């Protein structure tokens, strides 16, 4: 799955996802990606976020919407992303998932759920302070 958030110079936000889901799914199964608030979410007055991972679990917690609401209340993007992951961990400690977050001033962050085979999450960043697309990593929590 690709989850993407974009803010233009004026701070107009947009978010989106595209995926082919999970291998060997039962026909008809749809994951979190096309669900606004789960796969991705954007609101010019608060920020934008996108999620990736086990869609059957993520979908139930609306992680992208929740992250944006945390940023609306002043949390920085990394903290907002971490709080969303922590919420899901309580119910599904072994879920596979990651979230990216951006606030209205162009700050960004990410978080992921730590598993034995998944301890870091890579994501891409490109803004006016960089001269090219840059891969960044976060340690999972």
């Amino acid at each position, binding site marked *: 799955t690709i989850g993407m958030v974009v803010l233009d110079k004026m701070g107009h936000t947009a978010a989106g996802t595209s995926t082919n889901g999970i291998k060997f799914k039962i026909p*008809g199964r749809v994951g979190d*990606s096309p669900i606004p608030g789960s796969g991705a979410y954007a609101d010019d007055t608060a920020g934008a976020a996108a999620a990736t991972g086990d869609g059957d679990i993520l979908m139930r917690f609306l992680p992208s919407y929740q992250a944006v609401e945390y940023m609306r209340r002043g949390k920085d993007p990394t903290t907002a992303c971490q709080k969303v992951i922590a919420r899901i961990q309580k119910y599904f400690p072994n879920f596979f998932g990651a979230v990216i977050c951006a606030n209205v001033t162009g700050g960004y962050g990410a978080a992921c759920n730590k598993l034995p085979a998944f301890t870091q999450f890579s994501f891409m960043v490109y803004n006016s*302070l960089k001269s090219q697309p840059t891969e960044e990593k976060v340690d999972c929590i």
Partner: protein
Amino acid sequence: SSPLPLVLNTWPFRNATEAAWKTLALGGSSLDAVEGGCASCEVEQCDGTVGFGGSPDESGETTLDAMLMEGTTMNVGAVGDLRRIKNAIGVARKVLEHTTHTLLVGESATKFAQSMGFVDEDLSTKDSRALHSDWLAQNCQPNYWRNVIPDSSKYCGPYKPRSVFKQDGSIHKETGYGYGHD
């Protein structure tokens, strides 16, 4: 100085980031940029979890999900379980622009896409067909069934509900990394 504009995307899909940035640089909106970035992954398939030829379902078919959201008007267009159309994010854009709906799914979403001019084509590939036949050869493991007969942890379907609901407490199999994810 402000760090805006900003392009941020999951996983190290560099070309998608580049495509979105170029769209902005050419005067496109943030929505155009997200569409362009996701579309480039649909063409390149990125890590196999985006676009045609990946994640065959139990019948061997690849179907696509996609969504676009615009944060100024809160307008959304989305497709789920889209069949035989490669540019899912493009169809999501048409849902956003040409309907007042939010989400179209399944075969009906494919009919909508055809009416919008998208080409109907087979999304499976040699790789996805091989993946599927290997899966069949391994008694359809792993799969996403539970409380059914025959035992889904050992056999392929078709399955019927097991008459006595076995209280195993698990309402979802936590799949962990590497098993399959969106």
